[in-house]
């Protein structure tokens, strides 16, 4: 009964209802779209950092995190691989499920006749690595490594340019072996990869796990086991399970432990988003309150009559709040729809390659894709409806205080 009454009331003056609703629609659209864009920027920053760091969770020998050298490797990998195989399975069907892989990662010097420079040499299990890091997923000239290829290397485009070489060229890697002596080995370039960030292209060179183990003379030892997770899954839970299952001489770290600065950033980001929501809400609230106040003054005779007929102030307030809530909810639905449609139409991303070096500097990709999160959209709707009803109380109470005499005196 009350609902029907409120529903009829709001469509008695469609023009006014639509005016208020427009404000709500625009506001929610702004919140949803901007929220998704901000999340998109954040996600690309996170993604790029994780790709450089390779993996959401890493398992090392204790001490490797502080002193990442080959002496602090895991000599026996069976404990770790048995656990991971048991927990996550042996195959990796794609990015939507957890993957794991063993690696050797050490600092090295890459040199040819023209150039020499510091790089990270990464020995990878070629059949497992794809999906965990930039390896196997980035664009490539030539090809990724074939299983069993112990003389091949894949380097980044920026490094290839600095070395003046390309697919088929020769690169010598030098690094410190397990016995403190310099170890070196020549490789043939099989592929040149293109990463989002030039720094990634300069930093990483990939060889097969077996090749790196042979070069460093470390037998079947590895420096790390990496686990990749679907991007919306929190790594903490799995990390603590793995940590509990492994003996104390292993350390299990999530990206949150490894990148405290980024972690701080993510935390600040949620706060920023909600401040943004409230700011947008305030901007639209002025208009809503103004319009509602005018509506109350327009209906002053109606409220006077209702009072004279014996309706309580409380039920008048309730009626107006109910009407406002209806308008807010309708506007929220429309605004969210519009926002989601805009996100969908921007799904290919906004191209920022004009400012490519700028995005490089910030560690972001050249293309910003909106990344809508359900809880952001729900949050935006909650902010609008809860705060919206709160500010509508002001005009509602004004209406509740109208007396029949005042209403009659009003022309």
């Amino acid at each position, binding site marked *: 009964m009350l609902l029907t009454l409120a529903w009829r009331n709001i469509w008695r003056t469609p*023009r*006014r209802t639509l*005016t*208020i609703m*427009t*404000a709500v629609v*625009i*506001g929610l659209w*702004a919140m949803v*779209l*901007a929220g998704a*864009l901000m999340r998109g*920027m954040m996600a690309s920053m996170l993604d790029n950092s994780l790709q450089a760091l390779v993996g959401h969770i890493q398992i090392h020998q204790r001490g490797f995190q*502080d*002193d*990442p*050298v080959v002496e602090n490797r895991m000599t026996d990998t069976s404990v770790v691989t048995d656990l991971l195989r048991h927990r996550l399975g042996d195959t990796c069907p794609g990015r939507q499920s957890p993957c794991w892989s063993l690696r050797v990662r050490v*600092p*090295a*010097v890459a040199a040819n006749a023209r*150039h*020499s*420079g*510091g790089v990270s040499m990464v020995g990878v299990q070629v059949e497992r690595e794809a999906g965990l890091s930039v390896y196997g997923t980035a664009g490539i000239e030539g090809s990724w490594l074939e299983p069993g290829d112990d003389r091949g290397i894949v380097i980044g485009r920026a490094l290839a340019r*600095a070395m003046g070489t390309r697919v088929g060229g020769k690169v010598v890697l030098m690094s*410190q072996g397990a016995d*403190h002596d*310099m170890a070196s080995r020549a490789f043939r370039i099989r592929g040149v990869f293109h990463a989002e960030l030039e720094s990634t292209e300069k930093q990483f060179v990939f060889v097969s796990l077996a090749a790196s183990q042979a070069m460093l003379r470390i037998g079947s030892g590895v420096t790390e086991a990496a686990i990749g997770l679907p991007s919306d899954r929190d790594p903490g839970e799995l990390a603590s399970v793995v940590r509990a299952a492994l003996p104390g001489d292993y350390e299990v770290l999530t990206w949150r432990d490894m990148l*405290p*600065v980024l972690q*701080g*950033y993510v935390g*600040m980001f949620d706060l920023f988003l909600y401040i*943004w929501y409230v*700011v*947008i809400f*305030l*901007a*639209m*609230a*002025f*208009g*809503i*309150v*103004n*319009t509602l*106040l*005018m509506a109350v003054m*327009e209906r002053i005779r109606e409220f006077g009559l209702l009072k004279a007929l014996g309706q309580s102030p409380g039920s008048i307030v309730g009626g107006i709040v109910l009407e406002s809530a209806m308008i807010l909810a309708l506007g929220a639905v429309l605004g969210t729809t519009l926002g989601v449609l805009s996100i969908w139409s921007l799904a290919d991303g906004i191209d*920022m390659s004009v*400012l*490519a*070096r*700028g*995005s*490089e*500097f*910030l560690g*972001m990709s050249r293309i*910003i894709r909106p990344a809508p999160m359900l809880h952001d959209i729900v949050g935006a709707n909650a902010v609008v409806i809860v705060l919206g009803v709160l500010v509508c109380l002001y005009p509602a109470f004004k209406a509740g205080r109208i007396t029949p005499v005042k209403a009659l005196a009003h022309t």
Partner: protein
Amino acid sequence: MWSMDTRIAWRNIWRNPRRTALTLLAIAFAAGLLVFMVSLQFGSYEAMITSAVGLHTGDLQVRADGYGEDYAMHLVVADPEAVRTVLAREPEITGTTCRARGFALLASPQRTYAGMVMGVDPDGEQAVSTLSRIVRRGRFLRPDDVNTALIGEVLARNLRVNLGDEVTLLGQGRDGSIAATVLVVTGVFRSGQTELDRSTVYIPLSHFQDVFAMRGAVHEVVLRTGRLQTSSELGRRLDALVAGLDMRPLLRVRTWFELMPGLLESIQMDLASSAMFHLILIAVVTFSILNTFVMVVFERTREFGVLLAMGATRGRLIRILMRESLLVTLGGVVLGLAVGSAVTWYTQSTGIPMGDAGRLMAEYGLPERIYPRLGLLSALLGPAVVFGLTMLAALFPALRVRRLRPVAAMREG
């Protein structure tokens, strides 16, 4: 003093003070917020630039043409003293120093890492850059030092060396000869920039020149002017001056934004993305105000009909309406500007604490607080856009009046 129309507009505004106040506050809210936000952005950009220029590039640099591409050893400034003599005549330059850089293997008894070796002039560096301020352990280089080294914290940890330990350097000299020396660690620095902390060693320039067979040459002559804004124009003038020296390899003058294109572009990118968010905010406020204007017109349709029937021209009605909007908008913008500037002015001296992020920044030698920077541009930009768009919204009632027919209007409402 006021024309009749303005006076009517003024009285119309105050016929409904609550509504006027709310509209005015909406405009003031947007304008004030924008003053603060834009000033905050400008402040953080300035902090970023100042810290990068102070530590890395200086305001301007003299380098051999093409040196920045891959830092080739042979692209040198052959006679740095001649360059400095020419530059000494420029009153705008407040300080100069010379640097050289080479790539080398650095080895401690246990470890070997590849690193960047920078030769710096201890006295000159202290006058020009902030390097001496980020020494965390030990001391900065001294003029009478020979084979001492100031080493990045991460590199020191990786090499497992501490103050007083020796590091062997092995690299390639300017002429392709082998460059080798033993360095003694006298200081450890931490800049917070991983790349620098992980791979860089600073040694005295004179020792660098000996070891890398530089024959008196350097790679960079770093200049400070103390004023970021003049760099571009000054750069062009100095470029001509230095070219006049006719040195081989050919010398060029580069400004800080040419030396760090990523920094400038990241600022532009931040500007572009924040402009997007600010525009969304302004759009919402404009709609909010348009809302009010629309309602006002509906409410006053009857009044307009009466006025038209009594012989007021549409032009005059529109003039009065526009004047009402102008007064409210102007009031709002001025109020917003005043409050926004006051808040910005206050926080400009105290700074804005950044909580956890601030502690992290302090860890890296950056200021723990963000200081907004109130300038003419940062103060006026936001309010000007708000003003323009609000006045555009005010055209709506005016357009409606044009289509109004007196009799129909009087019957309405």
